[in-house]
Structures are given as structure tokens and as C-alpha cells.
């Protein structure tokens, strides 16, 4: 059984069919990118994998756990211990500095550890920016804080929805190179949603969605 097994998932909203039967298996350690036009259901699929939403039909099994069967507490614990999230908007706490934002994630997981948090920020190249607040950081730097925060609890799965959506080409490349380095070091699984063909090249596999279905699923060997 693959690490993530999405089985014939359907997601319907009142007036829209966001997903019309999607099945997808993802091996452990794989970096998979989801691409497709706006409204094709990419974010919906990612949210289902993160347990942020539940499917109308079908199942999502991660590491042999059917996440839709977990109760609220169980889901929160599962997410806390197995998953990291990065979004287009950084969602950093504005009145906490970079270090404190990372330490907060540690705290919700188990307990904070300043030394470990500052080392993690060092690995994303921010050792000179520990005490800066989000408003004092550039967009690329903010996104790097988010990467440090998402990975601080050693998740097995990193879910990223348009992580470079707000960045210019230079910063996008920097973020992707960083992710690539960390992925090689720590072997977590990445599912990344993007509509940018440049970003899509960076993974090992590209899934193209259209109108709530998978249109194309190809392995690329960039890594």
C-alpha cells in the first residue's frame, strides 16, 4: 500500500463538483506536484489529504490510517505529528518574531526548544533574522520562515499550496532549491500545488488536474 492512498474521492459543494472521482497513490518520500487550471480542484484535493476537509465519497488513507475515520482530537494529533503545511499566504503570527513563530509550532507539538528552532531557521538561511517580525521580512524570507515552521516537527508529509505564488522568479528559485535540499536530507513526502510550469518541473512526478479529475500523471526525473 502506498504511503498516501486516495481512493475514488468525490467532493461536492452545493453548486459545484470540485472532485469527480480521484484516485492517487503516492510513495513515501516522493515529491509530487499537482498542476492544472484554476478551479480544477487542486486545492480541494490537497485539503482532503491534509484532513482540513472531508470527502463526499471515497477515502484518503495515509500511513495506513483512514484519516476520515479519526475524530477531531485524533485528526489534530495526526496532523500535528505527521504533517507540515505551507500556503501562499504565510499565515505567520504578526506580533511574534521569526524565532517565536517557529517555537510556537514546537510548543503545540510538544514543547518549545529555542536552540533547535534557531538551528532550523539557520538551515533556511535566516540566522541573521531570528528576531525580525513578519512585517520586517521580505516575502521570500517569510516563506522561508514558513518552511522552517512546517518542518520543525519532522513531519512525514509536507503539503504546500502555491508556496511561491506571491514570489518573483528569483525568490521562487531560492525557495525551491531550499526545499530540494531539505527533501534530499530528510526524505519527507511532498505534495505541492502550483499552476506555474517552472515550479512543476522541480518534483519527481506531475499530476495534471482538469475539471475535478486527473487528466495526466507522469514521472519526471529531475531529482
Amino acid at each position, binding site marked *: 500500500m502506498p504511503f498516501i492512498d486516495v481512493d475514488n474521492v468525490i467532493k461536492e459543494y452545493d453548486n459545484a463538483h470540485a472532485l469527480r472521482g480521484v484516485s492517487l497513490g503516492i510513495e513515501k518520500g516522493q515529491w509530487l506536484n499537482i498542476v492544472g487550471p484554476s478551479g480544477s480542484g487542486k486545492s480541494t484535493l490537497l485539503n482532503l489529504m491534509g484532513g482540513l476537509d472531508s470527502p463526499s465519497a471515497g477515502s484518503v488513507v495515509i500511513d495506513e490510517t483512514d484519516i476520515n475515520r479519526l475524530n477531531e482530537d485524533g485528526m489534530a494529533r495526526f496532523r500535528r*505529528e505527521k504533517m507540515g503545511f505551507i500556503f501562499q499566504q504565510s499565515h505567520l503570527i504578526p506580533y511574534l518574531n521569526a524565532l517565536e513563530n517557529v517555537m510556537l509550532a*514546537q510548543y503545540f507539538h510538544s*514543547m518549545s526548544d529555542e536552540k533547535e528552532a534557531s538551528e532550523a531557521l539557520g538551515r533556511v538561511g535566516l540566522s541573521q533574522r531570528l528576531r525580525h517580525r513578519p512585517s520586517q521580512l521580505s516575502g521570500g524570507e517569510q516563506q522561508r520562515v514558513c518552511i522552517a515552521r512546517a518542518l*520543525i516537527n*519532522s513531519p512525514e508529509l509536507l503539503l504546500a499550496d502555491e508556496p511561491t505564488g506571491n514570489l518573483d522568479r528569483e525568490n521562487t528559485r531560492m525557495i525551491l532549491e531550499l526545499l530540494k535540499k531539505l527533501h534530499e536530507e530528510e526524505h519527507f513526502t511532498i505534495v505541492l500545488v502550483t499552476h506555474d510550469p517552472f515550479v512543476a518541473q522541480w518534483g519527481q512526478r506531475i499530476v495534471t488536474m482538469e475539471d475535478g479529475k486527473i487528466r495526466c500523471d507522469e514521472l519526471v526525473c529531475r531529482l
Partner: protein
Amino acid sequence: MSSFVVSEALATGFKEGFKAGIIWLVLIAYLSKHDRSSLIRSFHAAVLTVLMATPLFLVYYSGPPAKDAIRNFISFSFSLLLILSAASLYHASGIKPDGPLDRSDSKAFLMNRFILPPLIFFLTVAFFLPDMLGSGSFIKDLAAIKESGRSTYISALAGFASGYLLWSIIYRTLRPLWIGGFFDIPQIFLFLSVTKLLGGGTKGLAEMTLIPSVQRGFMKFSHDFIHQTFVFLMVPDHQLLKTTTWNFIGFFFGPNIAGFAALAGILFFPLLFLYYRLFRPLPDPLAETGAERRKVKSGLLFDRRKKALPVMLFVLLVLGSWFSESGESLSKLYIPKPKPVVEDKGLILIPLKDPSMDIKDGRLHKFALQHNNQEIRLLVINKTGGLSVCLDACEICPPEGYGQRDSNVVCVYCNTPIPVDTLGQAGGCNPIPLSFEQDEQFIKIGLKELLKKREFIPTGAAGEKAG
């Protein structure tokens, strides 16, 4: 009268049953947390044994000496608990790093089969037997007051059953097995000590707790220890040191200082434990990732805090009860005027009662005998278990005699409090005890005995004899 007897018996039985029940609950919660619930059988067996042994003992032994023995037995079992708590607290505090734990199956089997059951049995018996004997003999006395003793015994048993059942019902309805998470071996011993301290009294409603007698015992112990050390260190004695030094030392024997010393003695290991568990950093556990390490560590820290809670409660409880009991200990010293007595054919007779006094009223009574133009003073006081007759002097201080403050006699010279119930012991700061006979009317003391014991009194200036 009879309803009073029945309700006293009921309350006393209830107290013992309540104690047994609450201990059972804590124990079952602790044991099931460690997958050893079957060991609770040893506890039940021990409680049953004590329940059966108590009447047997009371049938075959009676009278005041047995009561003294029971009191000593209770103090002994309480001290044992304190020592066990102290040792296990020390062990668990983490001052000494743990050795490698042998958790092999064969060892666990041996523990579960051959070591823990008799250990639990023994400790349970050592805990309950003294208390039950104390309460039992009290109930026996109650039964003797009343024409039909049977209802007294039945109400005591009913009290025991309902005290025990109360916890049984709580267990069945609430299943509070989570409380097991607050206990390790030291916490269990502390819990047992508190249970005994708060519920170990042996005189029914009049004396529910052990606190006053424990206070007295500790005060006496710390006082005797310090006093004897000073006496020992002051050899050879020097004129200049005498009175001022004794006055200075006496300050340490005031009930408050001695009480503080005793309190410090009880709280030392719990506080040490709390300090090491709460304020010393936890070494980082080994783990592959930082997240895992933090998770294990936070679990350990949480466990530490959880298990510090009962210890903190113990400290607060002891502090609270200690101060509430010792609030009035600074009342004025009562020094009665000696009444003259005479010697007749080698015997001194002291009446138990005359129109002006009742010697058994619990207050200090002094008497003076003129012998060869010298005055010999005696003191008589009623204590638990009968009268105590002593010289109004000890073997150490100049013979200025004793006064009374609450349940202590106090040396006028060095301000040493001596619990009344310990009078009759020879040596140190205790008034020198006299052997005597007693009938319906008189206390009879031989002149020879008196003169012989007078030899122990230091004559003249302070410390001569002591030196």
C-alpha cells in the same frame, strides 16, 4: 449516654473503614496502571487478617500497659512510613542517576509472584494493625461502659463497612483509575503517612488525628538530641558559660524552635524531591529527530509535574495542620506551689484526692518533703495510662524544677518542653522518675527510693553533675 457510645463506636469504625477504602482505591488505581491489579489480593488478605487479629489480640491482652504498647506500635508504624517515604523520595528524586533497569520477564515473574505479594501484605498489616488495635481497644472500652456491649461492636463494624463501601461505590461509579497516574512508590508512602497522620488517633471523636502526638514525639526527639549534644560538648564545664549558655540553648528548646526542627525533619525529603524534580533540568532523552526528543521530554516533564503534585499536597497539608495545632503553644507557664508532705515509717503518702485538689485532673502537682533540713520536691501528673511520679529535677540542669504548658512539662531552667506522656522515661532532660505504689487513696513512695534517686540531681551550680 448509650446513643453517645453507639455513635462514637460508629464513627471510630467508619474512620478505619474509610482509611482502608481510600487506600484500597489508590492502590488499585496504581496497580492497574502498572498492569499488576492482581496484587490487590495481597492487600485484601492483609486487611482481612488485621480485622480478624484485632479481636483476638484484644481478648487476650488488656489494661494500660497494652495501651502504651499500642501507642508505641502506632508511632513505630508511622515512623516506618516516614522513613520509607524519605528513602523512596531520595531514590526517586534523581539525585542519584538510575542504574540500568532489569525488566526481564523472569525477574518480573519473580517480583509478581514472590516478592511483591508478601511485601504488600506485610506493609498493609504494619499499617493497619496498630491503628485497628488502637481503635479496637477504644471500642472495647466503650463496650464496657454500656450494659450491652454487643450493639457497640455491631455499630463499630457497621461503621467500618460503610466507610469501606463508600470508596467501593465511588470506584464503581466513577472508575477514577486516572489517579494512578499521580502515584509512584514515594507518593504512595506519603499518602499512607498522611492517612495515618490525619486518621491515626485512637480515642474516637476526641482524638481523630495523630498530629499532636507526632508533634510531641518529634519535639522530644529533636530536643533530647540537641540537648544531649550540648551537654556532651560542654565538658569540661566553665563557670562563665553556665547560666547564659543554658538560657541561650534553652531558646532552641522552646516549643516553636523544636517544633520547627521537627517540621524540617518531616519536610526535608519531600522538599528535596520537589527541588530536584521541578527545578533541575531534565537530561535530553535520546531520539532520532528533535521533534521526537521534545515529545519524549515533554511527556517526562508532564509526568514529573503530575507526580510532584501529591508531594506538594503533602507538604501543604503537613504545614497547615502543624501550624493549626501548634497555635496555642506559647501560653503561660503554670508552676504550682509545692504542698508539704511528710514521711512516716519510711513511706511518703500522697492523697489522690483532697478537698482542694484532684491529682488526676491532668495538671501538674508538686509536693515537698523536708528531710534533714533539705527540701526534696516531687511532681505528680496524670498522663495517658496512669499517674507519673518524678523528682522535680532532672539529671542535667540545676534543680529549679518544672512548670506546665499545655501537654508539656517545661524545665524552668532551660525552658525544655517535655511531653507529659513521655514522663516516666529516665535520663536526659526528663524529670527523674520514681517507682511508687498506688491504692484507692494514696500514692506511696519509699523514702529509700527517693534518697537513692536524689543522687542523680546535680547539686549546687549548673552543670557540675552534667560535666
